[in-house]
């Protein structure tokens, strides 16, 4: 409800105390006026309305400038969308230079890449198959961000889920297929959650930083699984490479046309997570902890509970991604490279989505398409497919730049800076 009676109440949130303020301005101290006069359209006096002397300017004393107008203001207000798009465009521009330097035509290369990824049946299926786990691991990073946690362990949690599914699929291979799939999925979720819960418990009981513990747990997962499928109890000795036993044929999730089974599940889960965060009391609790854990304590919201729940949910989602990798993608076995860099792509996706659960969907589709189209570059054009890794790395760097910029401005004691917004917001 806009209140026309209070023209003197500025619309500017004071960024210094509200990290999640939706709109704010560039650093006024470092760059002078946030909006240069050239960008500032003259005020329309008719919108100002009568003066009400009683109400003092509300935030003026704290020095919060209103959102800048003009182009800059637009960019700042819509930074949640602007930053990712600009990041991707810049990454592609830099990638174009690199492709050009190798003597290829970047426009043609990009066109081929996306034509294959979206306009061919095989390419589209591949895109959607890759989209499935990417949405899930993107959510697995996005949820903890809302609680103020940075889950780097999506990779390990996904692997734990995948190996759990492989174990169940072999151990219970005589079950009817639907039951077997269900059991494999449930166990994968539990395994992923369990793997994440180690980091969560270390955090809540011993104060171990989750970034450190999840990175280490990734390596531990790699080691354990290596042993399990390389001569260990889950290994299939008939295979030339370290590998688990194959999922029984009936339990393989073959795609329906170009739609793999996991895609609708991932989409529904993204919507559910968004709804949970936005509309439920649990979402309010999680985000209150993320925004001000002291106030959460005052309000009777348990930081421990929020940390555990967020990590369990994200571990479960990553574990589910592992199950789909196993059940819906040939050769339907757990092999060394099954997880690829999915867990880390999840970080790129969550940051591209700026922590917004629904934003993980387009971000995941983009990354999946790039990954799906990468082989085309090599087969058709001879460009090394690593260019896609490069593009994703540059994108991640660009998405992170505002965070770095904010940090730099903070160092200049300009707390009003809200150039970047926060990851989790």
């Amino acid at each position, binding site marked *: *409800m*806009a*209140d026309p009676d*209070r*023209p*003197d*109440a*500025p*619309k*500017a*949130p*004071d960024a*210094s*105390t*509200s*990290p*999640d*303020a*939706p709109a704010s301005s560039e650093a*006024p*101290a*470092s760059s*002078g*006026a946030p909006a240069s006069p050239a960008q500032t359209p003259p*005020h329309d006096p008719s919108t*100002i309305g009568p003066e009400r*002397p009683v*109400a*003092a*300017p*509300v*935030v*003026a*004393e*704290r*020095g*919060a*400038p*209103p959102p800048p107008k003009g182009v800059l203001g637009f960019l700042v207000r819509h930074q949640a969308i602007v930053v990712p798009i600009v990041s991707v465009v810049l990454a592609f521009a830099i990638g174009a230079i690199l492709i050009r330097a190798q003597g290829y035509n970047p426009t043609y290369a990009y066109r081929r890449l996306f034509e294959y990824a979206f306009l061919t049946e095989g390419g589209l299926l591949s895109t959607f198959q890759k989209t499935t786990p990417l949405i899930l691991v993107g959510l697995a990073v996005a949820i903890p961000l809302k609680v103020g946690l940075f889950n780097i362990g999506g990779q390990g949690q996904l692997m734990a889920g995948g190996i759990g599914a492989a174990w169940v699929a072999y151990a219970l291979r005589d079950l009817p297929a639907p039951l077997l799939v269900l059991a494999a999925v449930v166990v994968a979720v539990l395994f992923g959650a369990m793997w994440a819960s180690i980091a969560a418990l270390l955090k809540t009981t011993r104060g171990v930083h989750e970034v450190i513990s999840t990175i280490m747990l990734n390596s531990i997962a790699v080691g354990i699984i290596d042993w399990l499928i390389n001569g260990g109890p889950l290994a299939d000795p008939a295979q030339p490479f370290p590998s688990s036993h194959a999922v029984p044929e009936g339990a393989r999730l073959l795609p329906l046309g170009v739609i793999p089974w996991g895609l609708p599940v991932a989409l529904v889960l993204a919507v559910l997570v968004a709804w949970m965060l936005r*509309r*439920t*009391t*649990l979402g*309010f*609790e999680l985000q*209150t902890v993320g*925004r*001000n854990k*002291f*106030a*959460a*304590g*005052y*309000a*009777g*919201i348990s930081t421990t509970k929020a940390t555990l729940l967020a990590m369990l949910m994200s571990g479960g989602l990553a574990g589910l991604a592992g199950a789909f990798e196993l059940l819906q993608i040939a050769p339907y076995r757990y092999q060394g490279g099954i997880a690829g860099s999915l867990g880390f792509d999840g970080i790129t996706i969550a940051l591209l989505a700026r922590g917004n659960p629904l934003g993980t969907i387009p971000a995941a589709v983009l990354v999946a398409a790039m990954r799906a189209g990468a082989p085309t570059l090599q087969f058709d054009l001879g460009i090394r497919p690593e260019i896609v890794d490069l593009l994703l790395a540059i994108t991640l760097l660009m998405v992170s730049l505002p965070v770095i910029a904010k940090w730099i401005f903070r160092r200049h*004691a*300009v707390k009003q800076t809200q150039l970047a917004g926060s990851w989790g*917001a």
Partner: protein
Amino acid sequence: MTDTSRNPEPTTAAAASTEASGPAYDNDGATTTASGERETLLEITGLSKSFGTVHANKDISLRVDRGEIVALLGENGAGKSTLVKQIFGLMTPDSGTISIKGDASRIKDPKDAIRRGIGMVHQHFQLVPVMTVAENMMLGHETTSGGLLDLDGARQMVRELSAKHKLAVDPDAEVEDLPVGTQQRVEILKALSRRVDLLILDEPTAVLTPQETDELLGVMKELAAGGTSIVFITHKLREVLAAADRCYVLRQGAVVGQVDDLSGTTTSDLASMMVGRDVVLRVDKAEATPGETVLSVKGLQVRDDRGLPAVDGFDLEVRAGEIVGLAGVEGNGQRELVESLAGMRPSAGGTVTLGSGSDTVDLTRSNAHDTNNAGVGHVPEDREKHGIVGGWSIADNLVLNRYDEAPFARGFVRDFGAVRSHAVELREEFDIRSPNVDVPAGSLSGGNKQKVVVAREMSARPRLLMAAQPTRGVDVGSIEFIHRRIVEARDAGAAVLLVSAELDEILSLSDRIAVIHGGRVVAEVAGQDADRTEIGRLMAGDSDAH
């Protein structure tokens, strides 16, 4: 009646410096003007600054001479901070000039301001908590010897500066272990270490205990006597009269009053200038009609963050329909007591019960959520830290501890309609000045943030309302409003426990006053026959006074 036990730094430093009473001002070679015709240090003419349609500063002109203490007095939102930020180069004026020692060129940034002899102590300290005082002092202009940090030199510098300015500080103490008042001293020393002619203090007393405030005012006078000019922002009238030579009163961005001779001025003169009307500093309230006991605390023990007993055998009863003021020097267990009663901190012994007879609830072990549900409202001491979530909207903050109750949630799904209409109502009732209820609470001024907290806690109609420092850092207009609300809560039958470092606040609101010292109640007196001096003595731990 300084409580020396609270000063961790060696008293020798202070003692050593006393022999050099009235030393010639010699701040690392800063120009010392001979007495006589006073040099104009800072002159501001026609300064304006607006943010969009808001005029934060309108045509402000003022002058500061060398060795003068000038107070900038005004309500929250009057434009005081904006003004000093421009002097310190954190913001650029839209029009008008700021001339420092006759040099009216633009102040580019804080570095430029420091180079020209301006120092500023921010309201929120810019210290690194895990570093020592000496390390903090050298931060930003580190000196090295042989490629290593010259920490000995920094220690020496701290000792010299603290002796010279009589600001006792232990150079090796870690900042996070120091009381707030001492941290502020470190900030002041840090500013002084850089050849300061004009020291700006942004609400320096907002975080201080009464004793620390008195000490600070003394320090300010010393500095001024030595030739440093001081501009200090405040909204505490008593401090203006106690320390300032001159005073400018700001309201809605403009200078509305200038008092060059404060000797004939009273606090109510200043107050009415500030808010543009006569403020009732004395709260009008009817005689209390206490009912049955609501809060009963027996032998409560609570430990502080370091595990040391902070509340030690605390006994108190608060009855329905009365305001009990808990007076005490800060750091005598009030914070731990309130946090424990609110369920935010476990108790180590004793009992806490709410209600009487068959209606009794044992709160000794309950957490914040259950305590709140049992009917305890709590206005926390540190509203920025505990009271609000800056990133949530005003509406969400108004249900911060009731978000999961009907009608604000049905099951586990929140009802935004109910949250919003609740907020719209409270915004009107509690005069929360904001464009709407959807803006982030972090964008509000201190007074309005506090109104959000008070509105939330009072709208739940608590049986017990605990208000800790309810008007700290709040403008005069809001103080009056919040006080009135507290009395209304009492008249509606709530038991009110008021904890405040402002003795005036305790005296004007309380029906009964309990004095806390060393974590226990040392005396209880009726509100109407409370004597300021006697309570002051009791607060200082002088139990013979009673």
